[in-house]
């Protein structure tokens, strides 16, 4: 009955923190039952009672609907705890972080859930214990949740399920149909990340492509190489490079005789996107850019001539880059510069093109500030940020992330860049960003996240293990 324990523990924690509202609700619930004050012994008895009620409830009703919602997260929590953490953990590329100091809303949700459950169990106990049959074997409980899980959990996207052989086979078949080579995986896999791709670095993807590549457009092959070798890195750079390559593809495209441009071009782009995904998983900004391009292509009227259609598409792509990337950067930096006052010490992490742009603009507008660049292995991107800022003339300090708690007392603001912004408000960024944000919170330093709107995506992720990109464990 771990989940019961979980919720009750949570309830305890909540009450111990001293949130007035929570205590009142708990009191009301217990008052219904026993009408006594809360003591330690009482709590223990309450817990045991709940356990008993739970067993009885199982006998009585079996699966009830309200159980579904609280079960999956606690089940997931149990599973995570039972796995052993590996000694060599591949580095994670991204980690979600909650924006600003959002601990309070999260807590209240959990405690509300706990209270609801306590109340419902109390109600059921009050109704009376009829027909206490023998305990159902514990396997009954473990069998039930997977069945409950299925109607609730939607189908996960393909790239997340590497330990599911059916999903892997489906992906392989799709790639084979599109004539894209499949990237080979490592022999030894870390069990904690067995659901993520762990690619072997020895066999590059281009080995399996013919040299004057005919199936995949040469610009896309070049782009894939640049992605996998890290020559084009950073959310904005990757999107711009992708759109540039798409422009080249559209320029070289010739409509086959019995096809329409609006439908055939989209089909032509699909294998390229799969190939790029194989080279390096697509970023959220790239995904949005692809959606936009596909939409534009589909919206081309069928009577449009090929040359005009191509010109229109090329100008659409140019507009997208101009609006969503260049102009957005200008607007964001105009807002952000207002937050920078003279004498500020600004902390930045890694190399974010947007944050660098803001700082350079602020320097041009004659603000007096200094910057602390925090860097982390293995990519050590902070060196590049440092170079650009120092070249501009900004006063910089450079530290590694291990020193961030030492340097934070001197910092007045933290500027962070984002890779993506999820639908639940979480920010996805370079690994280490959440650490910076938490330490900043501990020192009461305001954190500002800068993100263009084209990086917003509808995904929701609660932690960084569910879906991520693994780095090279040997660098």
């Amino acid at each position: 009955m771990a989940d019961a324990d979980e919720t009750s523990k949570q309830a305890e924690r909540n009450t111990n923190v001293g949130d007035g509202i929570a205590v009142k609700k708990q009191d009301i619930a217990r008052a219904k039952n026993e009408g006594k004050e809360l003591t330690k012994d009482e709590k223990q008895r309450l817990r045991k009672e709940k356990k008993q009620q739970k067993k009885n409830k199982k006998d009585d009703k079996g699966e009830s609907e309200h159980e579904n919602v609280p079960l999956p997260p606690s089940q997931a929590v149990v599973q995570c705890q039972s796995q052993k953490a590996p000694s060599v953990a591949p580095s994670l590329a991204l980690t979600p972080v909650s924006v600003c100091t959002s601990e309070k809303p999260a807590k209240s949700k959990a405690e509300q859930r706990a209270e609801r459950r306590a109340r419902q169990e109390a109600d059921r106990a009050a109704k009376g214990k009829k027909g206490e049959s023998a305990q159902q074997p514990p396997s009954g409980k473990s069998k039930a949740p997977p069945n409950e899980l299925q109607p609730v959990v939607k189908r996960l996207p393909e790239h997340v399920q590497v330990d599911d052989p059916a999903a892997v086979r489906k992906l392989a078949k799709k790639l084979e149909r599109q004539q894209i080579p499949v990237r080979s995986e490592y022999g030894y896999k870390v069990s904690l990340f067995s659901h993520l791709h762990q690619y072997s670095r020895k066999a590059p993807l281009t080995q399996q492509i013919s040299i004057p590549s005919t199936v995949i457009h040469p610009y896309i092959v070049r782009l894939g190489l640049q992605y996998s070798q890290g020559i084009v890195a950073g959310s904005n750079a990757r999107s711009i490079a992708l759109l540039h390559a798409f422009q080249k593809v559209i320029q070289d495209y010739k409509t086959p005789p019995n096809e329409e441009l609006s439908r055939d071009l989209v089909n032509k782009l699909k294998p390229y996107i799969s190939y790029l995904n194989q080279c390096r998983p697509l970023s959220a900004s790239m995904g949005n850019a692809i959606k936009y391009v596909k939409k534009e292509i589909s919206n081309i009227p069928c009577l449009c001539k090929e040359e005009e259609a191509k010109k229109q598409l090329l100008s659409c792509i140019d507009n997208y880059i101009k609006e969503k990337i260049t102009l957005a950067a200008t607007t964001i930096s105009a807002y952000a510069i207002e937050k920078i006052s003279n004498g500020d010490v600004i902390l930045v992490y890694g190399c974010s093109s947007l944050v660098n742009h803001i700082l350079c603009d602020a320097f041009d507008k004659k603000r007096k500030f200094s910057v602390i660049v925090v860097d982390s292995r293995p990519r050590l991107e902070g060196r590049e940020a440092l170079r650009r800022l120092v070249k501009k003339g900004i006063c910089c300090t450079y530290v590694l992330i291990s020193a961030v708690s030492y340097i934070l007392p001197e910092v007045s603001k933290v500027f962070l860049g984002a890779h993506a912004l999820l639908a639940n408000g979480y920010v996805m960024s370079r690994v280490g960003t959440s650490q910076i944000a938490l330490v900043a919170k501990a020192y009461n330093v305001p954190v500002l996240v800068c993100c263009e709107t084209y990086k917003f995506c509808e995904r929701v992720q609660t932690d960084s293990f569910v879906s991520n990109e693994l780095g090279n464990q040997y660098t």
Partner: protein
Amino acid sequence: MELQAVLMAAGGGSRMMELTYNTHKPLLPVGNKPLIWYPLNLLERVGFEEVIIITTKDVQKMLTPDRLKLDGKMKLDVVCIQLEGEMGTADALRHVQQKIKTDVLVLSCDLITDVALHEVVDLFRAHNASMAMLMSKLHEFTETVPGQKGKKKAGEQRDFVGVDATGQRLLFMANEADLEDGLTIRKSIMCKHPSMRIRTGLLDAHLYCLKRCVVDFLVENKNISSIRGELIPYLVRKQFSKSVNLPNNKDEVEMSQKMEGQTNLEILGSCKDEELLRLTQERSCWNDHHGDMSEAYHGGKVRCYVHIMEDGVCYRVNTLAAYIEANRMAPKLIEDPPIHPSAVISECTQVGADSIIGASCQISDKTSIKRSTVGASSTVREKVKITNSILMNGVTVEEGCNIQGSVICSNAVIGRNADIKYCLVGSSQRIEPDARHLDSNLSINDSALGSLKMSRDWPA
């Protein structure tokens, strides 16, 4: 289309005239396949569908698909050039400039290698390089070269190749012959790349990926006639020359042309560089070097890369020693069985596992063939011992001969009981019966050889 392949096959083989005075170099048999088969096979394996072959008229007649024994359906576009005018490799490339519409992969017909070509091309693609080339560790030849009469050939001039810390960017390239009083390296190179490795034991495989704008540049500058000798060192030097500011109007272009006397490679190259590429590089957080204040690639537009093969087969068959070594290595590269199915071999013969017997051969009784290559349509009579030798096509060896460490060119006849050790027997020569030859060159004499020297700098 991404890359077009151009195969240079008009060289005369000026460093192995003993073999090539009668047989053209692209058609010299190595492992019973014509020399030109090897680079064509490499291209085909990798996925090329078309090759432009630049060669002479005589060779063109022989380049039919069945003679070449190509399995696939690679289209060969053979272009002839006159050999009378001294044409260098760059001149030949200029000759076919009309056919070249994309970036080009130039290789020479005497390259035998099993390199993973994607390594060279990946460097070319990923860094948007102007040139990417292949080099390999030089292997010492251990076999005794026949027909040398004990004379030691003058050591070939070494190549000094300077690469950066990653081992991929080419910083410096010079031949020993050009360095009169020592190696000088420009300060600008040392400032940009403080760590440089200079290597001398490298063999240039003559395989180059060149950008389209380099070919256009060649067209404009007609005084460059050799790719290896002039164009490549020029490109390597150009990486570090002061970049010319892009002129805005026509007058400036003309003035800069007058000043330099030749169209600037950068002007041609940078027209292709687009706004978006620049934007991408600006936003990307990658740099190829660290420690100084300059951007990726130091802002240089011309970039040369080299892939150095540490292990694997890579030979350039341009000397006799290389030819012999290549014949030894050939069985590893060919998937066909060493003994051709149509060869007739009697039962009492001993044919070693590392020997290659060509098509329609006739090997009679009591012969022993070890570590040798016997060409197509050859006849070997009884009681012959052939060791460490190369017999080309149509050779007849009478009874009782003993051939050791020799090269016997096509259609030669070795008389009975001849004893030939470490000799080179020329084409269609007759060796008298009971002759004893040791370490001699039994082809046409040297003075006649001298008059047949071909054009100066073909991949020879």
